[in-house]
């Protein structure tokens, strides 16, 4: 102990060492209060039998152990089946939306990579769905997908005559398709934005050298663009997948109170399980399970895609 004190005396802290701690404190406190503490609380609540009777004073809620988890994950009961159904649905939704959004973003970023007349205009147009307040865009789609007064049925049924009956788009099985289309519309500009930013950091002379060597556009894209974008894609795909998987807003605004089974994404499902029945213990158990699954998936993804030279470093 005395040795430590001597060391401390010999090497006094540099002047102003405390400055970064003070100026980062507000951000750290906010993160703590809004994210970290609620997350820890969520774990605690998932172990309690916290229903509407205890909401004002949740310290009085009886301890439930793992009962909430067992209820949420027991697939022989309707509750467990509901969770499993929503999970599978969210998985399918994520694969569809991320694949399409990434493809659209990649195609648009590639064809807008080189200057031509009107390029800035196209780029601006493509960013509008991202800039638009999320609910304004989704409400517009809700209007377009109305059975009797919507644009989609007007085009498909009245103008093109592709379908005899006017299909419903916001209830029944079609709701999933509608959800995917709206989510792609909303999310692809973000992929475009990120990929466009990534493309800007690729020096033009790499392409010039490849063109002199006789590489076609496709070869240039395959051999230069794609590898150079690998770091951007690694983060972009992860972030987009997590956002889309956790998507609550799109079904919430698109379906209103309709809530078709084919659009019952996992976040939406947990929200309804918690706030419609006021069973917060069960809702938290579902959330915690979801978090653990996402955490494991993210870690596996990051390991599997980490650049080889760093893996053993």
């Amino acid at each position, binding site marked *: 102990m005395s040795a430590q004190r001597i060391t401390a005396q010999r090497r006094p802290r540099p002047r102003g060492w405390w400055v*970064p701690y003070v100026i980062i404190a507000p951000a750290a406190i906010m993160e703590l209060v809004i994210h970290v503490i609620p997350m820890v609380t969520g774990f605690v609540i998932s172990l309690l039998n916290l229903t509407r009777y205890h909401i004002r004073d949740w310290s009085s809620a009886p301890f439930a152990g793992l009962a909430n988890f067992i209820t949420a994950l027991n697939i022989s009961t309707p509750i467990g089946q509901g969770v499993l159904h929503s999970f599978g649905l969210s998985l399918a939704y994520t694969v569809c939306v991320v694949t399409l959004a990434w493809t659209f973003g990649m195609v648009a970023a590639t064809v807008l990579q080189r200057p031509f007349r009107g390029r800035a205009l196209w780029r601006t147009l*493509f960013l509008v769905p991202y800039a638009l307040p999320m609910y304004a865009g989704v409400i517009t789609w809700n209007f377009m997908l109305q059975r009797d007064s919507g644009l989609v049925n007007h085009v498909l049924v009245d103008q093109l005559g592709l379908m005899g009956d006017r299909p419903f788009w916001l209830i029944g099985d079609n709701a999933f398709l509608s959800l995917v289309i709206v989510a792609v*519309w909303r999310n692809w500009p973000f992929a475009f*934005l990120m990929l466009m930013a990534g493309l800007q950091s690729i020096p033009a002379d790499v392409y010039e050298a490849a063109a002199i060597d006789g590489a076609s556009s496709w070869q240039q894209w395959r051999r230069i663009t794609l590898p150079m974008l690998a770091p951007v894609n690694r983060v972009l795909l992860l972030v987009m997948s997590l956002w889309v998987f956790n998507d609550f807003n799109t079904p919430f605004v698109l379906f209103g109170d309709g809530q078709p089974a084919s659009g019952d994404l996992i976040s939406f499902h947990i929200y309804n399980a918690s706030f419609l029945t006021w069973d917060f213990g069960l809702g938290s158990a579902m*959330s915690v399970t979801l978090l653990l699954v996402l955490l494991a998936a993210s870690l596996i993804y990051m390991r599997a895609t980490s650049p080889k030279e760093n893996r053993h470093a």
Partner: protein
Amino acid sequence: MRDTRGMKILRVVALTVLGLFVAIPLYAMVTTAIKPLADVQSSFSWWPSRITFQPFVDMWKTVPLASYFKNSLIVASCATVASVVIAIFAAYAISRWRFRGREGFRTVVLSTQMFPGVLFLLPLFIIFVNIDRMFGITLVGTPGGLVLTYLTFSLPFSIWMLSGYFDGIPTELDQAAKVDGCGPMGTLFRVLLPTARPGVVAVAIYAFMTAWSEVLFASVMTTQDNRTLSVGLRQYSTMTNVYWNQVMAASLLVSVPIVVAFLALQKSFVAGLTSGAVK
């Protein structure tokens, strides 16, 4: 260097398809906002039977839109100002000091960004209810709770983007400022901030967009008196008899300022993303 023929064809096809996909809903929103009510109650038409601006007048009476607007404006403005100020200081610390806990902070901040909102919605709601019970500070049903929540939502991105900007400013400038007698705060306000102004503006726009668009927390943490636009318009659009022309007019009105601001600043936005991605 000239583009090949194949590339030109691909460009025309891709731009047409994506352009239509993006533009048709925007077109529907704008043209519906200027239709008379009869037009939106029958089958869809591509063009109004007559152009009217009546929906922009009527929409204020159908729902308390002015109140939603005011509430959203208060919440989003407060959250934006607070978020930008807090992010500036945090980004300055991360960019200019190597202190203990720096990496831990960055990891926590970035990872919270990825977890489902419902995960902390529940506990946060319960924490707010209990803060009210214990300290008498009402956070549910007042703008305060939403301001606190929203400012934290935009913090991770803002800190990430601003520290990228600060990293791009040579430390020689800091040294010069120090020689001239500036303390750490003087350096921040006289040297870094003026240079990083586009970044600060882009971050502010992002924070405002985040707060302006949020639905989930707003739906749980507001009551009829302090409804924000997102929840109000959602309710409006799911009523049994929807005046779509008014809903579209309201959607247009809440979108235009944000879209214009974002598009005007898209260059700084992309620059900020690039500086972050390069690191």
